[in-house]
């Protein structure tokens, strides 16, 4: 865990907490993700995973604690400044620009970190480099034929792909992926897994995922959250064999197969992504989980 002094960790959460009117969604979570790591975040519904992401990416401010990106304290920075420093993210509840075409979506993302985003007098289509790059991005994920299609016409699988492509367009150094495979068919899951494994090695990935098969193929270490608190953090192998984790997921049934983690809330393909604030999934968890997709994001519903 201790990185060499010359290379600070890519992402550090230091005693992060977030309370919503008395409910503690994230309680004193400390994480360290090394540069180039593939890091997973696991936990039942209402565990605080998405709230933790919102704290890391700047959508929410922590009640206490701090966030650091490559050794720089970014706790006070707004989302767009964090993006400029190389922190990209995707959203669990898809947030693409559905009124725009695929090409417009990707071009908008590509202008994000360039001064040209404030350019007024030149048509965006005339930025040939950007539109070519958008086409390349789309082709990298099977959206090449869909460039002119309005994003609202895309299938659920294509929307999830576009969601990831938008984040990749910024060439982030650290990418937060919030359930990229949510609601995808098995074939589409394979596609997204292939894309994730093909990402450059120097890119640091932090990924929330319910599907342990997707996770196992991509991440090497993980953290388990439960009711806002960190239960355990370490290499994937240790996590899968951890007694507390098994107890958490199985209510102490003691089954041996680590893959059983996938049982937790994997939605049938084609359905909309599950909401974090949904009903408690298992008999083992308390009936009152903290509201995760919390109140501050008004109008952010599906």
């Amino acid at each position, binding site marked *: 865990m201790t990185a060499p002094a010359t290379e600070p960790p890519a992402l550090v959460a230091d005693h992060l907490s977030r309370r919503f009117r008395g409910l503690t969604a994230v309680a004193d979570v400390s994480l360290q993700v090394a540069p180039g790591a593939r890091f997973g975040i696991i936990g039942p519904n209402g565990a605080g995973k998405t709230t933790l992401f919102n704290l890391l990416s700047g959508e929410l401010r922590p009640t206490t604690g701090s966030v650091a990106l490559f050794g720089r304290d970014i706790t006070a920075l707004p989302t767009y400044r964090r993006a400029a420093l190389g922190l990209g993210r995707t959203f669990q509840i898809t947030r693409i620009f559905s009124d725009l075409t695929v090409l417009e979506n990707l071009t908008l993302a590509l202008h994000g970190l360039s001064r040209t985003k*404030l350019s007024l007098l030149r048509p965006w289509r005339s930025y040939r480099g950007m539109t070519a790059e958008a086409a390349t991005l789309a082709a990298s994920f099977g959206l090449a034929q869909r460039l002119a299609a309005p994003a609202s016409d895309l299938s659920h699988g294509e929307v999830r792909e576009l969601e990831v492509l938008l984040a990749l367009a910024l060439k982030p150094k650290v990418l937060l992926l919030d359930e990229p495979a949510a609601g995808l068919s098995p074939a589409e899951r394979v596609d997204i897994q292939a894309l994730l494994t093909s990402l450059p090695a120097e890119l640091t990935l932090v990924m929330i995922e319910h599907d342990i098969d997707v996770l196992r193929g991509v991440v090497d270490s993980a953290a388990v959250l439960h009711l806002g608190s960190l239960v355990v953090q370490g290499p994937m192998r240790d996590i899968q064999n951890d007694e507390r984790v098994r107890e958490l997921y199985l209510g102490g049934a003691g089954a041996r197969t680590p893959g059983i983690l996938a049982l937790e809330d994997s939605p049938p393909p084609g359905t909309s992504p599950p909401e974090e604030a949904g009903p408690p999934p298992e008999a083992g968890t308390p009936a009152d989980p903290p509201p995760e997709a919390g109140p501050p994001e008004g109008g952010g519903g599906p």
Partner: protein
Amino acid sequence: MTADEKAGAVAVSPPGPGLPAGRGARLALTALRGSRRFTAPVAAVAVGVVLVLLLQGNGFTSTLVVDMLVYAIAAMSLDFLGGYAGLISLGQAGFLGVGAYGVAIAEVHFFSPWAAVGIGLGAVLALGLALGIVAVRTKGVSFVIITLAIGQVLWGLAFQWVGLSEGDNGIPLTILPALGPFDLNDPLTLRMTVLVVFAVVALLLVTFVHSPFGLSLRGVRSNETRLAALGYRTGLHRYLAWVIAVFFAGVAGVLYIFVNQLISPAAMAFSQDGLLVIMVVLGGLGSIWGPALGAVVIVLFQQELSIYLSRWQTLMGLTMIAVVLFSPGGLWGLVRAAGRRRDALIARLEAGQARRGAS
């Protein structure tokens, strides 16, 4: 498919009695392709010629056209904010008033006419910059309400700050700017100037909406949270869109007082704000040209129809309902749909040609 294609060809140009069907289809195709390429320039030239002819006379019609152009500028500025950034303002007529009052009050205080124009535009820009800090903190319904409040405060100032605005009577403007032979006191020069300013504002706004900044405004409307995660300082983008829209409303205001030679609180009343929104929605939200068309129709209703029909508002309301029901994209949506139908017809004719060529 062949039957479809023939029907399409017949609908456009019925082949003559001795003309083989294949040739008729070919002619139709050529005509349609030509229309695709030349619609915009031909329409622009035609509209320009009609306007110039109308603007030359001194009668009722030329006054009507000039009014249309002034309101079109205000409606287009409102569309830039509402149709692209998704911020519908109910205070736009207030800023039109600020531009007009700025000119009038400056002239009352013995500034030269040109300086008065500068003061009018400067006042509206300063006010836009200041009020924008408050206004763009809100979105959706809150934004509508806060702009309504701003518009009403501006109207209230014009109405009650009698020492500055002369209250309900308004301020007349007697001397317009002149520069050598270019004299806005000459009615024809003034009308041509309004036409040129309209064209410049329209082209600027159309350029803006196709720029990366224009794209970012559509992104703001579509999904602001995502846009922030992509590195955009979304508040800044909304603020700039607001300032641009307010400034062009002020430009419309300066032309308004030149044309009417009087500004009174009536020009800033809530009904005027509503009328501008109706122009935008009737013409087509998010199309720039559409709201200009909406301004033409509404001014026509207001000034022409009202002569013959005292209940012209009823007819305006019914028209509004019909457009919203049958063409949610407004009048401009109808124009676009016609263009799409033509393209589909071209594609069908081309397919027919290809089949005939192959066999």
